[in-house]
């Protein structure tokens, strides 16, 4: 009969026990896919790529701290990001791929309104949670889609505050140059005009340019002949930077107001700091350290270190999305999207949030799934956007208005 070595038995037992422990630990640690659909190339990439980076950064930080603990399980997170090129069909394809193939139940990103609206048209039928970032088209949250939330306020929420601000500064006549065929700029202008004319102001001209236009001198020449007291420029960063630059080149010295949300680096690619001097940006109080404080400072430093360039002002909308989601999952004690949606709806502002949100009641999101940030007046001073003051904003009244649009 073969003699069994006692030490061998002990070693085998130890190995088996070790394997069993590993298996238990492995079973408790799971993976959660975070899907990102955003414009990573093309004209929308100035907003989409920084958003995607911001989500990746937040996820990396969370993973480095051990992941998200849900009951007995710990979830490590994996980001799968696809380029939607700011195109509705591409966005539909990338979101379908995220849901159907990659198994993503949480979708973040969404910087541009057209593709976001396309996804919003079917997302209500899916068992997923969608958090929208920079896309500002009002209709996205006006429909009351139960599994859709947005961190950025709609453009007209800011537009009316901007109209009141410009009128208060004594401007009586203004000319508008902008991407007026892009809906959220036209919605901004509509709200701006309502407040501005209510206070006695008059819009002398509305000139439009395309997203890819770079020569704005025809519009500027036409506007100059009308002799307005100020200029209002609405659009994506690059074309607007050309407007500011060419206005100076044409000798136009009137105050220039705008709504672009571009960073210093983005503007300085097109215009010099001298050409930008004195320009106002009237927008949600986005990433300006002087307006948002130390947490924003740390965010800018970390982002710059990791990606080699400073973040765009609107990128924290996506960073904040992730922390909204993280706290909602922890609060729900589940990764079931429906329970997580309930937790988001009743949850407050996450402590890691970079933007300054205005809660509606005690919650961050209103009944439409919409969050509101403060609006601010920023002015270009010596190469930097400087926060000057808040713009008057009423999220409760706007929330009621948004609810009234639902069919």
């Amino acid at each position, binding site marked *: 009969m073969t003699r069994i070595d006692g030490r061998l038995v002990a070693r085998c037992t130890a190995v088996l026990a070790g394997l069993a422990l590993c298996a238990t630990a492995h079973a408790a640690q799971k993976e959660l896919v975070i899907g990102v659909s955003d414009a*990573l190339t093309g004209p929308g990439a100035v907003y989409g790529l920084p958003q995607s980076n911001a989500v990746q950064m937040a996820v990396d930080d969370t993973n480095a701290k051990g992941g998200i603990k849900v009951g007995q399980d710990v979830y490590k997170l994996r980001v799968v990001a696809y*380029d939607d090129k700011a195109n509705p*069909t591409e966005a539909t394809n990338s979101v379908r791929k995220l849901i*159907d193939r990659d198994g993503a139940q949480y979708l973040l990103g969404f910087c541009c309104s*057209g593709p976001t609206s*396309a996804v919003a*048209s079917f997302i209500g039928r899916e068992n997923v949670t969608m958090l929208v970032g920079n896309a500002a088209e009002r209709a996205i949250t006006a*429909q009351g889609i139960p599994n859709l939330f947005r961190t950025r306020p709609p453009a007209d929420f800011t537009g009316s505050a901007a109209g009141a601000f410009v009128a208060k500064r004594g401007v009586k006549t203004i000319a508008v140059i902008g991407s007026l*065929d892009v*809906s959220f700029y036209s919605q901004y202008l509509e709200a701006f005009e309502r407040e501005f004319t209510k206070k006695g102001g008059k819009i002398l001209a509305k000139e439009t340019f395309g997203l890819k236009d770079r020569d704005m001198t025809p519009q500027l020449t036409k506007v100059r002949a009308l002799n307005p007291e100020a200029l209002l420029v609405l659009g994506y960063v690059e074309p607007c930077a050309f407007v500011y630059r060419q206005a100076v080149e044409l000798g136009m010295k009137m105050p220039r107001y705008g709504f672009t949300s571009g960073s210093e680096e983005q503007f300085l690619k097109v215009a010099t700091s001298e050409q930008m001097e004195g320009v106002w940006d009237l927008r949600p109080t986005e990433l300006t350290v002087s307006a948002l404080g130390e947490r924003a400072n740390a965010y800018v430093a970390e982002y710059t270190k990791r990606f080699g360039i400073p973040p765009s002002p609107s990128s924290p909308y996506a960073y904040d999305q992730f922390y909204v989601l993280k706290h909602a999952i922890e609060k729900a004690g589940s990764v079931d999207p429906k329970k997580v949606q309930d937790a988001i709806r009743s949850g407050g502002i996450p402590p890691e949030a970079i933007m300054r949100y205005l809660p509606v009641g005690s919650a961050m999101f209103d009944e439409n799934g919409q969050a509101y940030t403060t609006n601010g007046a920023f002015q270009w001073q010596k190469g930097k956007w400087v926060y000057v003051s808040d713009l008057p904003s009423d999220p409760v009244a706007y929330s009621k208005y948004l609810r009234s649009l639902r069919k």
Partner: protein
Amino acid sequence: MSRALRVGIGAAVALAALALPHALTVPYFLHLTILACIWTVLAQGQNLVQGFSGYVSIAAGGFMAIGAYASALLSVKGGWPVWTSMALAPFVAAALALVVGYPSLRVKGHYFAIVTLAYNLVIVTVLNNYESFTGGEAGMPNIQRPAALVLGGLQLSFAGREGYYYLVLLAAAAATAGGALVLHSRVGRVLIAIRQNEMVVDALGVAAWRYKLFAFVASGFLAGLAGALYAHFIGFLNPEPFGTDQSMNAILAVTLGGSGTLLGPIVGAFLVVTLPEYLRVADTYRLVVYGLLLVLATIFMPRGIVPMVSRGFRGMATRLAAALRPRPDPTP
């Protein structure tokens, strides 16, 4: 290829197409297949003008937009049944093609291409700016799918992707069958003659413009049908997907698959839809890789994939037949 073999291959392809939704484990691939079928309808229309008569139209995206918006507006704003809207939309696009095609076909070659490019730009600009009607850049949400049909006690629902797949498959098959009918008719022969030498056609007393106009209007009709199918599948419309990029992709689908062939537009449509999606692994370089692949394909396969593959098969068959032929006895 013998007739029996052709029928056999056709039946096998038809069976595979019918069984596809049950064979796919990831619904995302069904989503892409639906888009590819819609693209097949568009590319078959483009093939009538570009492949058969040799005229390059850069307005396919614009006519697709007309079909999409016509169907969406009739059903969403007009309150018409979706089926009626979808059925009428191609006729709206065809009517516009008739109106703009009549003066446009007076010019030839590159000038015709430039005129149609202008139409596409005008259509997109109008859709963008006529906000009160089209929703402009903000678009039109909540475009419904067609209602379920009951045929012989069997309910066919189109709310899900599987039902919609069969609808677009039917449309793609009908567009291909329509192309085959034209190709093998007198009209098709005249169109091909126009492609080869329009002056000779005119000299023979054939009114070439009538045939070209027919091809242009039929192309507009199919683009309109593709647009209606697209609108009710995606559920949201704005002018972005109907720009000149879309028209160029329609040209590309025909060129890549095989201009003037029946199978070419099908192959081209599937490539144009699926290739950029599969290249997502190349991340931000995917469009560079896509562009490079297209350039290489155009250089090395100028007549398209289908003619090249057909030639390859014919060569193989000839060699096989030669190898199987009994050799003469070498002994004296």
